[in-house]
């Protein structure tokens, strides 16, 4: 049996959030944390609420805090986890219910960096071409699935989340800065050059430790800082 301690909050019942214990059998080899949560929802307590969709680490829906570190429940093995497995919603976010948090602000911040290709030159007859080397610049950035594990692991974002953009959004910003097809690099950099939006990063590196896709948002943030510096000199 696996023991879990899960954060519960029911807005309709009122009252404070609490923790509830569950016991789940190991019913298949290579069982993931999401399997255990599904078992609870389907067999033990149907009111347990959490997000999930693809179940294989691609959609980024089931980001949560697992034994103190953020990760995706669907790709986290229960076998390696210390018991009781303490499951909480992504930190520093308004809780809607149980493990479901309100991500509105996170995606507002994402929208603010204009995460799309901006080009002013006339549209070519075929696609906008990129060399193999130029495309390789996007490795380690395009894999980001915006699960929010990194941003909600960042103490700087916890304290200054209203102004600091956070690791996920800054990694995405760097993705567009590095894209050889994008023609608004200067404008993007202008908008990021801000004591709070970018420079609240203090290299705490929780984002790097949390990223379930093995990316490095701290490295991306440092790359933006270097690009800004290179532009000045």
């Amino acid at each position: 049996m696996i023991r879990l301690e899960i954060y519960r909050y029911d807005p309709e019942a009122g009252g404070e959030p609490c923790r509830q214990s569950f016991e789940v059998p190991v019913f298949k080899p290579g069982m993931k944390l999401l399997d255990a949560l599904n078992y609870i929802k389907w067999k033990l307590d149907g009111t347990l609420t959490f997000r999930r969709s693809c179940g294989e680490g691609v959609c980024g829906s089931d980001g949560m805090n697992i034994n103190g570190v953020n990760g995706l429940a669907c790709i986290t093995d229960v076998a390696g986890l210390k018991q009781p497995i303490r499951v909480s919603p992504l930190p520093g976010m308004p809780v809607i219910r149980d493990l479901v948090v309100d991500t509105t602000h996170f995606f507002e911040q994402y929208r603010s960096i204009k995460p799309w290709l901006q080009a002013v030159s006339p549209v070519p007859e075929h696609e906008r071409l990129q060399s193999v080397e130029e495309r390789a610049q996007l490795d380690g950035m395009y894999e980001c699935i915006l699960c929010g594990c990194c941003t909600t692991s960042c103490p700087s974002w916890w304290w200054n989340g209203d102004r600091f953009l956070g690791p996920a959004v800054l990694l995405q910003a760097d993705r567009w800065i590095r894209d050889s097809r994008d023609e608004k690099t200067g404008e993007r950099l202008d908008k990021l050059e801000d004591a709070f939006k970018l420079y609240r990063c203090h290299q705490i590196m929780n984002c790097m430790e949390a990223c379930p896709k093995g990316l490095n948002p701290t490295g991306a943030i440092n790359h933006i800082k270097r690009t800004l510096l290179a532009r000045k000199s």
Partner: protein
Amino acid sequence: MPTVKRPSYSRPLSPRLAVYRWQLPMIASLAHRATGIILALFVPVYLFILTGLTGSPDDFIRQMAWMHSVPGRLILWLTGTALIYHLVNGIRFILLDAGWFEARDSMRLTARISVGAGVLGALLLGGFLW
């Protein structure tokens, strides 16, 4: 870019510091800020020691006695440790800023080296002072 405002909710905030597990790079960053504060706070103490040592011969003896007392030694030990750590980790941060050691494993390894240097410095300095 419009200023992004966090909407106000009556919803509870999910636990953050209370649940988050301490990890070495996090400790390294926090210790860097803490030792920076200690070093800044030491400036008036340093001036106090300096004026004491450069006054009269009597002042010099009194100042030396204070520096050899337990609180004096503790302050010197704390500041010395802070200086060693802040120096080593400061170099690490500058190298990271310059684009060195940016792989995930290197970030972890250099955090270990910084914290290890701080602990080693504290022990050596402690041995020297007592």
